[in-house]
């Protein structure tokens, strides 16, 4: 009987021919630790009685949620991160280079077939390059740091096949929002998502990243794309038979299959305050807005900024509306500056911030108050996520967000 992508990755990792439901102990290829969790990870690590991390090269510490500091106490997390990296000879410490999930793939820490854990739920992102990756808490991270292993249950897979050409102004964000709406917020809990079909084959790795990033919003444990030429080029590796053969077998067994025709998809938004409350933008036209947020590990990449700049070139952000732009990494920031994209956005009236988690997690850089409405390209519109619990958050694609910024209301 054939295997899905996640079954192949876990089988190779454990040396066993695994099936959904099997409980296995995996050898961890890489871990991602973020600043906000570092004080707790280090304290649990010590409490457990460990002295040394199992393999310093496999540990990546990224300061992003608290960069730059917005509260005096945030600095404590930096100090603990720096001290732990020094003490344990961890070479991979990023103090201000960008958002963790962007850096993990961009800086080459994750390759196809890897098994990766991170102390952030959007760790599902690395499925964009064909890696098994998922979020865990700080106690389990401390245990991995000491042992290099973690137990897990092999998930069943939901296959999502999308075929055809996406209509103009429909981005991969619209695709994943629609899928989450159909699956619901708990529809993929404990399961893997596997995306296939010529629509996703034709997508850039960046567009795929948006989809694997948001899979957790349907509860998914991981979200995988079969590695192809684009993956290999992005990761700077050769597309060997070993890598290529991570693709699902033709006779793999799925929990269920969702089918979409790209031509049927339209721009959509997730309405306040549920990620699965999806409506076509055409039904929301005329809703007044106060702010637009373009950025995050979901949609803060060069192609996202380019798409917004194409909409806003020669235009101005509507009166009384603020447009906040946060590129996902320093590298993207620099590329966008060089290409003139930041200039276009700035001319339009954007506030451009340093790469970081900032507004997406409601810590800094544009938080909102009662009665305000924001169109945001990030991944969560939970109650109170970007300010008070009376802020209305609509999640949208970069193109939709840019159009709204210029209009001052929701437009198609």
């Amino acid at each position: 009987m054939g295997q899905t992508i996640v079954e192949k990755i876990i089988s190779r990792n454990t040396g066993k021919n695994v099936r959904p439901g099997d409980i296995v102990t995996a050898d961890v290829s890489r871990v991602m630790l973020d600043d906000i969790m570092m004080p707790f990870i280090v304290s649990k690590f010590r409490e457990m009685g460990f002295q040394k991390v199992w393999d310093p090269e496999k540990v990546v510490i990224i300061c992003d949620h608290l960069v730059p500091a917005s509260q005096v106490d945030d600095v404590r997390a930096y100090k603990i991160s720096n001290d732990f990296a020094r003490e344990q000879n961890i070479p991979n410490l990023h103090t201000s280079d960008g958002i963790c999930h962007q850096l993990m793939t961009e800086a080459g820490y994750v390759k196809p077939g890897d098994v990766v854990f991170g102390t952030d739920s959007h760790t599902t992102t690395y499925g964009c390059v064909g890696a098994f990756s998922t979020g865990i808490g700080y106690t389990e991270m401390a245990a991995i740091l000491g042992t290099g292993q973690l137990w897990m249950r092999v998930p069943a897979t939901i296959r999502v096949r999308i075929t055809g050409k996406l209509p103009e102004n429909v981005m991969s964000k619209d695709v994943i929002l629609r899928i989450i709406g159909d699956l619901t917020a708990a529809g993929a809990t404990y399961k893997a998502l596997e995306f296939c079909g010529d629509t996703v084959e034709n997508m850039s790795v960046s567009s795929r990243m948006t989809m694997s990033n948001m899979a957790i919003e349907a509860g998914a444990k991981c979200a995988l794309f079969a590695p192809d030429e684009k993956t290999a080029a992005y990761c700077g590796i050769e597309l060997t038979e070993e890598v290529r053969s991570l693709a699902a077998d033709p006779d793999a067994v799925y929990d269920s299959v969702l089918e979409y025709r790209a031509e049927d998809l339209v721009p959509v938004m997730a309405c306040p305050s549920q990620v699965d409350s999806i409506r076509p933008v055409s039904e929301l036209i005329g809703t007044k807005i106060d702010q637009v947020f373009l950025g995050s590990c979901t949609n803060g990449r060069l192609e996202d900024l380019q798409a917004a700049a194409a909409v806003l070139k020669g235009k101005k952000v509507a009166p009384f509306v603020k447009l906040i732009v946060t590129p996902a990494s320093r590298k993207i920031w620099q590329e966008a500056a060089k290409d003139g994209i930041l200039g276009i956005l700035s001319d339009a009236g954007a506030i451009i911030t340093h790469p970081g988690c900032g507004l997406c997690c409601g810590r800094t850089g544009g938080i909102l108050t009662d009665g305000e409405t924001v169109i945001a390209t990030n991944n969560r519109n939970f109650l109170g996520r970007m300010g008070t619990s009376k802020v209305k958050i609509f999640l949208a694609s970069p193109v939709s967000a840019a159009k709204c910024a210029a209009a001052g209301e929701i437009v198609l």
Partner: protein
Amino acid sequence: MERFTGKVWLLGNDIDTDIIMPTEYLAFKTIDEMKPYAFSPLREDLAAKIKPGDIIVAGSNFGCGSSREQAPEVVKALGVKCIIAKSYARIFFRNAINNGLLLIENDELADDVKEGDTITVTVNEKIEYNGKEYPIVSLPDNLVEIIEAGGLVKAMRRRNGLD
């Protein structure tokens, strides 16, 4: 089997981790400092009203969202005896078990029970409410091992020859 009775706080579906513990308080030094803000986006006064031994009953997908372990830790620190929900998000489930916070899955109770009523739980067996019994499924063996060790930290201490 352990048996206990507690007062119910009733919550809905998709109670996410940003509701359980908003990001703005996550960098506080201790879980105790975070306690007053638990559930504040949804019900500002709830954390102050919850008393040790109380039970949270909720709908489906409890704990969805972020991987922040402060969420189950703060619920435990409030003295909540257990959570009984229709289903849990997977990261929250693992985090709760690793901290020794008892989670029970039950499909019906959230639709029947009223906030403020008391229920009786017999662990791994049943819930009793209003003259009706609700069966409970037992946890898998590997999770029982972690709980029996007293959480993952204690399991690792034992592994490292400390306890």
